[in-house]
């Protein structure tokens, strides 16, 4: 399964790099992370609580950072498993300085999924993983902006990461957004209130008639 994309950070490249390599920031950027411990400078292990559609469960895993060229690029290797299955993958991340002090992040990833996730979650994996990545990047961006602002004003960072509920809600909205683009679903959502109104009218008129 491929996971490619890009995102524009509102901050300079060096700051983005620092965030990406900071386990405490990463832990909050992806809510559901119960713990993210540093084993070495390039190896982390942790536990994450994931919710994908009707399936939810804890995933224990390892994250390894390699091929580092700070602050340009690195490779992230992830290997996680839990009751709902396993996921492993390799992602390449590139940070490109933009003219206006922003940073463009380009990422390409290749994932393998197995267990319940693979056998019953096929329809959702694509949408949910893209959504999770986007949410994570948005959260990182907010953290970046808070940090940059604090530095500029020389005060401590004020940054509140999204809660697990907010995060799950945002993902659900993305999935529903995907669903709402299906013509039949839109039609049903349109027809149901129309029918309800018609029934109501019929009731009212029958009352008036008698």
């Amino acid at each position, binding site marked *: 399964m491929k996971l490619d994309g890009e995102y524009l950070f509102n901050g300079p490249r060096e700051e983005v790099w620092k965030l990406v390599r900071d386990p405490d920031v990463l832990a909050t950027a992806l809510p559901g992370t119960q713990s993210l411990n540093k084993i070495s400078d390039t190896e982390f292990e942790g536990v994450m609580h994931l919710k994908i559609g009707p399936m939810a469960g804890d995933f224990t895993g390892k994250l390894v950072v390699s091929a580092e060229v700070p602050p340009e690029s690195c490779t992230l290797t992830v290997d996680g498993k839990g009751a709902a299955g396993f996921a492993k993958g390799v992602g390449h991340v590139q940070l490109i300085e933009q003219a206006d002090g922003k940073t463009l992040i380009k990422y390409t990833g290749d994932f393998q999924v197995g267990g319940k996730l693979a*056998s019953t979650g096929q329809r959702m994996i694509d949408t949910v993983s893209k959504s999770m990545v986007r949410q994570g990047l948005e959260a990182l961006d907010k953290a970046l902006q808070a940090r940059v602002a604090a530095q500029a004003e020389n005060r401590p960072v004020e940054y509140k990461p999204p809660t697990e509920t907010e995060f799950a809600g945002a993902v659900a909205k993305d999935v529903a957004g995907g669903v709402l683009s299906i013509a039949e679903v839109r039609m049903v959502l349109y027809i149901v209130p129309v029918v309800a109104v018609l029934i109501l009218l019929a009731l009212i008129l029958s009352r008036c008639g008698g």
Partner: protein
Amino acid sequence: MTAQYVGQRITRNEDPRLLTGQALFVDDVDLPGMLHAAFLRSDYAHARIKSIDATAARSRPGVVAVYTAEDMGAFWKPGPLLVPAPHSIKDLVFNQRTQIPMARAGDKVRHVGEPMAVVIAESRYIAEDALADIVVDLEPLDAVVDLFRALEPDAPLIHDELGTNLASYVLQEKGNYEQARAQADVVISRRIVIDRGVAAALENRGYVVQWNAREQELTMWATTQAPIALRNLVSATLGISENQMRVIAPFVGGGFGPKIMLCQPEEVLLGWATMKLNRPIKYIEDRRENFLATTMERGQIHDVEIALTRDGQILGLKDVFIHDTGAYNPYALTVPLNTQTHTMGPYEIPNFHTEFKVVFTNKMIVTPVRGAGRPQGVFVMERMMDLAAQELGMNPVEIRRKNMIPADAFPHEQGIIGQDFAQLIYDSGDYPATLEKARQMIGYDQFVKEEQPRFRAEGKHVGIGVACFTEGTAVGPYEGARVTVESSGKVSLVTGVGTQGQGHFTSFAQIVADQLGVDVRDVRVVTGDTAQFHWGTGTFASRGATVAGNAVNAAAASVRAKILKHASKALGAPEKELEIVNGQVRVADIPEKSISLSELALRANPMRGSVEPGTEPGLESTQYFGPQYGATAAGTVAMIVEVDTDTLLVEVKRFVIAHDCGTVLNPLIVDGQVHGGVSMGIGQSFYEQLVYDENGQLLNASFADYLLPRSTDMPHIEIGHLCTPSPLNPMGSKGVGEAGAIPTPACFVQAVENALADYKLEILETPLSPNRLFELVQAANP
């Protein structure tokens, strides 16, 4: 004896209870103190297990026990080979690797869903939660999923010590194909691919086991198609005597083949666990487990070549194929042998070279599913017929008729060995008649000449297909039955086969009712209880009605003879003047001179006094029947389909099947079997396909993603019956259970190609889907 019931379309005895929810299914069994099992199943298709740690799981409240392979000790062993390899075939290669109860630390898991541990707990919820507590340390390995890849020298090995993934090699030859090819005017060769599907019975597998330590007896309620064989094999595995174990197969919600797989890991583990814990245990499989860990069928790739004369006569056929057996091969070669014997079908093929390789892959085990290898053979042959017809400019019906075995050529030896290890012989049949009947029923000529041109002018894509098939049924070895007239005058019939909805409670009762002159509703039938009858093999290969039915007939006839003997003495009239009507034995010309069956039964079992030496008590008889070889049923299907070229959805507008299953016991039940087979056949043509990724992960293990045809997708099925009685059994019957499933994909593909004739498609695969059809249309018309 008048046939008042056999051949009649009477409603089924068992339906009132089934339809009002009063029948017993395994999940209805509730025992005091019953525990629940859940199995930890591998998420990886191929991995080496380093360790399995169940400590956390064992300490979860509500968990009674967690077992791994280590805990089983000497009871851990690979399952028995269920079907012997056909050693009568020359130069056979057969590498036996049967399934294991649980994967072991230090060894490997070989397919997604393979059990690694079992949790026994107070409830299924707790048991499943405990599964997440078990820590398995494993090293994933590359999986083998593609059949050809499995045979490459550098492919990962499923069974390391074998040094190869080749499970078996069989070559059979009739005549000399190379000579035939040299003389042919036309030679056509193609590669044909047939893919996997599941049986998807309404009821998943389920077991309740109970070991009674005081009585030293094990009872197992099981959704099995072979209760007697299950008892014999599991009792042997557990080290108890057959007599100590009772298997009860109550009503089962559909068998279709996977439930005749025996010594399944769950069966062995549950039996072993209940003996260890001395408490009853229940396990009901959920649908996802059914997709992953219940046996399935059908992956084959054929390289086939046909050699014909210019006027469409087949000189020879060569078929080289590769068959996927999954991670293990406990069912030996039944499925691919069936493919070999059903490729020739109803046609005269003087030279036939057929060879296959069976490969191990990291997927679930393959064992028979309705059709059991026959659909593949029929698909291959019918596709080649269609290609030949196309090439020679012949009508598809004509080329078939031209090559059919004539009605006077029976018994017809086919020159190769089949799944019952004997030479394939067609006992009886009239194949041209089934073709003609189907052709008439569907109105073939009128459709092709008038209706189709009219549809085409309207821009509609409507097509017709005709496919012919033979069906090996009613194979041995044997079945048995015991008929008893009770002192109430009612009759009890017990047989060893199990029932999964075939109507045994009615069709067998009809046989007995005719023989004994009682009302068919007064015959109480018991099936599938090893305590009541313990010799037999099971329901498979469309054999129940014929093999068990003939045993029932023999037992009933024997009881009839006893009745007449007793009655003759009681009434003082010669036997030949007696008749049995409505439970009364009476003198034909003097109806007042009569005695009831009830009275006779009482007299035949005196409570006091003496009997003559050699007397058997009561009005009872146990008889067995085993045919010399399997009877061959046959038929032709025809269908008309309409393809929507925007959505590539296919609607079956008409479906006709002309079927010959010899003597019909109950046309209503036969029609039901045909309907069921057709719906599975349509599913296998267009809706059902298992999709695996390159890591052996099954991607559509739920009905959200694995499509089954619904009643709204089904056409009205028109059935025509023909009858060439089989000389192989006294009732002249043949099987029909799998008939609908066998030819349908072949006919479907022909009809779709015909509907899309202007797109010039050549479809060499099954199953199809709108998506796949779209791809094929695009590829042929870029």
